[in-house]
């Protein structure tokens, strides 16, 4: 069972206090988008074996959403950061590079 540290309230807690919210950094596509864009936005997921960026909500705590960088094979957590960003901050990317040289996810690396 995972442990995560909520970057919003600083509490480190077990999985049962959080709610997983799926892939992070999705760009919302509204009425002006075409079918492909909307389809990808709603259904296409990275589902990688390895480094992944995902959303969590500290549902039994401060109630805030945040992001986590995690390895889906080893479950190692590289770091967590607030959700109010469109891409992972530099220090998170560096933390991943230190552990997984040459990693890539979508366009990122």
């Amino acid at each position: 069972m995972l442990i995560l540290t909520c970057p919003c309230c600083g509490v480190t807690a077990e999985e049962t206090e959080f709610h997983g919210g799926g892939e992070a950094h999705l760009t919302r596509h509204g009425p002006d988008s075409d079918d492909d864009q909307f389809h990808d936005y709603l259904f296409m997921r990275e589902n990688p074996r390895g480094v992944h960026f995902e959303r969590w909500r500290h549902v039994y705590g401060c109630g805030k959403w945040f992001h986590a960088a995690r390895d889906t094979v080893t479950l190692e957590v590289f770091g967590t950061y607030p959700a109010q960003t469109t891409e992972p901050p530099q220090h998170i990317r560096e933390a991943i590079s230190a552990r997984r040289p040459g990693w890539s996810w979508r366009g990122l690396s």
Partner: protein
Amino acid sequence: MKRYSAFAIAREAMRHHEGWERAWASPEPKRKYDVIIIGAGGHGLATAYYLGKNFGITNVAILEKGWLGGGNTGRNTTIIRSNYLQDPSAAIFEKSRSLYETMSQDLNMNVMFSPRGVMMLAQTEHEVRGWKRTAHANALQGVTTEFISPRRVKELCPIMNIDGPRYPVLGALWQPRGGTARHDAVAWGYARACSAMGMHVIQKCEVTGIRSEGGKVRGVTTSRGDIDCDKLGIVVAGNSGHVANMAGFRLPLESVALQALVSEPIKPCMDVVVMANTVHGYMSQSDKGEMVIGGGTDGYNNYTQRGAFHHIEETVRALVETFPMISRLKMLRQWGGIVDVTGDRSPILSKTPLENCFINAGWGTGGFKAIPGSGWGFAELMARGHSTLCDGFELDRFREGRFVDESVAAGVAH
């Protein structure tokens, strides 16, 4: 293939069973096959079997990176039912269930299909209406089910507490010909039958790449060299996204861990399969005597074949509440498998952007019961380019918003 029978056993007993031949050969891969199936799980082997049996296509290789039947085929809770709500689901699952009825004879391997009956409990008024709706749909789909009273539930499953303080049982959707089967034997039986048709079941052969030319599939690259093929079927639950990427397309699904557990074996006390969706638990008793229990999925991508223990807790407390007598039984073993879950939690049986490459994926938590039906339909799709059993499960349904949503009737599908 030497036939299995009581007589054969008696004959072999006389010579210390030294005459039994291999259930399946382990040949070296050829340079080329008409059809390659990636994944020697139940679905992949069944697909190959029906390619041969129904369409005479036997120049087939089934490539398996590990050991055959080693994925979800050998990790599930062996429940077989077809009491689904939507027409496409009911069609393929009922086809599957009916094939299970005769599978032991078809494959000459006893897969121990046990049509002991499956009941889905209704524990809220909303569930009552949902299951009644399913019963009406099933009647028109040719699936035999009925909505039964709490008293009948108690008759069929005496160990159940039908008036618990929290969620009294208000009835159940009952499918008398649903049941269970011996999961490993299903994979072994298909492998043996495929091998007998001259197909190549090749274990410890990992596909590392998929080769194409002018938008057409050419073959695969494997840990045992390049192998060519005219048609390629990808049937690799738990790795679907990964392998699809090799073929150059993406899938609208995610992989999560699903857990199950068994108790120590006890004498027979439960003759039916019970699923309780409101409290999230389902249970049956294996022929060996173990209570076989299904848990929930983790809420995040996971390839570990392990799950978090709190899901086991949630399931077990639900079942202790529903079956108070199990409280002093003990959990013998828990395990996990990786399931691929799509946007509408229904499978994908479809052509792909790569010509002559087909995908069978996304069975989520309900794959085992679908093995023969899925193989039957997918084989037809691969051989003929169309199968009515696969209608509705196309890859592009998500783009059009044309979903096959079963969660409508059941909170959880297994």
